[in-house]
């Protein structure tokens, strides 16, 4: 499968899974031309020897808190952790495809109208909506031309929520 298609699909699955975990509802994800500015933004980078990328999540504080299991969470910190969990799931989905991403720590911005742009990568904007709100996502990827991934189903990656006592 084309690596960009694989990673884009995996990213949208990861984003949907994280939102569903915290809301109980699978969000509707839609591609957008660009994203409206929001009050909070979070960036998590990821890279391996072949592929580099960034995940940007933007949302208002109310939407971020709607995704928090504790009502008094710091919205900026929690958006960073949500993005970390999204990219963590992307990383786990990419392992069978032979990609082992290193992740950057989340960086969060807050302001009156935070908007992100991509300078030098293939990028696409999405919105993920559920009854409680919308989170917007920007996925930027740098993928070598002609890179195809053949996921190995035999590769076992620990599932989200699983416990393994040694």
């Amino acid at each position, binding site marked *: 499968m084309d690596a960009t298609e694989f990673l884009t699909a995996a990213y949208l699955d990861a984003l949907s899974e994280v939102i569903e975990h915290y809301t109980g509802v699978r969000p509707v994800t839609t591609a957008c031309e660009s994203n409206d500015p929001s009050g909070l933004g979070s960036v998590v980078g990821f890279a391996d020897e072949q592929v580099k990328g960034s995940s940007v999540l933007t949302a208002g504080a109310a939407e971020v808190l709607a995704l928090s299991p504790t009502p008094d*969470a710091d919205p900026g910190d929690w958006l960073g952790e949500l993005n970390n969990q999204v990219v*963590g799931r992307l990383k*786990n989905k990419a392992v069978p495809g032979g990609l082992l991403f290193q992740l950057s720590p989340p960086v969060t911005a807050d302001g009156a109208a935070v908007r992100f742009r991509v300078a030098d990568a293939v990028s696409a904007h999405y919105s993920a909506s559920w009854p409680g709100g919308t989170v917007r996502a920007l996925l930027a990827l740098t993928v070598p031309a002609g890179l195809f991934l053949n996921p190995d189903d035999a590769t076992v*990656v620990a599932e989200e929520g699983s416990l393994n*006592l040694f």
Partner: protein
Amino acid sequence: MSATVLVVDDSATVRQQVGSALKLAGFSVVEAADGVEGKARVSAGGVNCVVCDVNMPNKNGIELVEELKKDPAHKALPIIMLTTEGAPQLVQRAKAAGASGWIVKPFKADLLVAAVRKLTS
């Protein structure tokens, strides 16, 4: 006397969530924001179990396990990794370093509490 669990994560919200689950189950909880703080807190004494993120600034979770386990005083200290990571290579590295378990985020509170209870009993 309840066991004391050290929660090490660079996200204050995650520390809050894990701490709440453990306190509800009757454990005492102390926190650290990265591996450097985590090591200092363990060295200060009184910690019976550690729940630790992997990807953190200053010192990551696996480095923390490796350093703590070099000290004979902490040979028996249970350390559970709580992380988004699921790659088998990392799980094996943590196991080889002396970690006691691996939970992939987002965590289920009942599983976490059961694991801590089992490791501190």
